[in-house]
């Protein structure tokens, strides 16, 4: 239990430490990240679809 608590506080600390992206959010960066999100979203959808059809 204590370990789990420690672990959670550790995660929280990491989330706080890296809360704000340091890189300058220029148009290029924003665009790339957006495309990446869409790409991953589609990929996950495909995997879920495959998972359902296999079952």
């Amino acid at each position, binding site marked *: 239990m204590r370990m789990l608590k420690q672990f959670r506080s550790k995660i929280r600390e*990491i989330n706080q430490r890296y809360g704000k992206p340091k890189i300058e959010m220029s148009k290029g960066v924003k665009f790339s990240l957006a495309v*990446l999100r869409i790409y991953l979203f589609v990929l996950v959808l495909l*995997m879920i679809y495959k998972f359902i059809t296999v079952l």
Partner: protein
Amino acid sequence: MDFFSVLYFRFKKVWKAVRLYLVIAGPGLVVMIADNDAGGITTYAATGAKYGYHLIWFLLLLIPVAYYVQEMTVRLGAVTKRGHAEAIFESFGAFWGWFSLIDLMFVDWLTLVTEFVGMTAALSIFGIPAWITVILVVLLMSIIVLNGRYWTWEKIALGFCLLNLIYIPAAFMVNPSVSSILGQGLIPNLPGGFNNELFFLLMANIGTTIAPWMLFFQQSSVVDKGLQEKDINMGKLDTLIGSIITVVVAIFIVIVTGTLLNGAPIDDAATAARMLMKTNHYVGAFMAIGLFDAGLLGAICISLASSWAFGEIFGWAHSLNTKVKEAPWFYISFFLTLATAGVVPLIPGAPLVLITLFVQVVAVTLLPAALVFLILLLNDKKTMGEYANTPLQNTVSVIIVVLIIVLSTLYGVSALFPNLFQ
């Protein structure tokens, strides 16, 4: 200055550069040669068996692909003195950080399983039972890492890299026809026209050349080795030489299987080794030793890549140079990843083929993200300063990255839906 002095001066300068290179060499060589892991050997063996020498030209194209991607990690590591995971967390925030980290852990673990599969298969050719192989490997790797110095670790890893060159004498032993290698291999051609099967194999070759763990691994090892900005050129050279060696080794594997097993259906390298045993005992043995070595080298690097990444984020002392007591979590995570992955091939009826496919699919979720992050990070003038990407470097690396993303996505999707491209 007369002729003698000029000669002396030049010689000394070159000699000094060579010695400096020998000091700095390591991360690039190791990461590139470890890239020829069990999965890689299988892919190359299959390529040779299926198409003979015809795809050697394509392998040569992989030199710049591997170099331009990995070279960026050298610059990033030497300038920021941070591993890739930490760089992603810091620059893109916790969301992308966790995504990369967990994904990396997952891919690495799966890849590690394939390395163990390769290693146990390789040694089973010599009659060694799988469980002995697994225990031996886990022990050996723990000893190497527990030794507690980056320096010794690197030298041992370089020793295994040297063993990876075993395919070169093997290729000479099968007496291939040099003229047909040059005639068939060096002229770009698509044997049998462009079809689904060929496309799948080309994608597999690219997929083994750039793996997500390589980015994380090389950047962390550059940091652990303590390379500085002034060492960047040597580090790049190291990467270039490594990428040439890795492709040369791949070509020699293709030559071996292309000469002896041309036309045979090969699913994995162990089968190839077994079949080679029948035609030429020594070449078969070399193939098996090479496969074991490739799996071991891959396992060492991949498990380290995860441990380094986790250490960076959780703030555990995350260097090979720290003692076990100072960095218990670093070593525990290393050992856990290793042991759990080692157990999988021992499970009777484990879905090993499914796992291999799964690696490709999950890798496709991580690789594009990691590559995009890499290019964005290298364009961050604020931290990279004069070492940021030049327009030329950007053009080259963007083209390469887009190519890798498209091909590896198709590869992953075709692994999900095998009938899609039929």
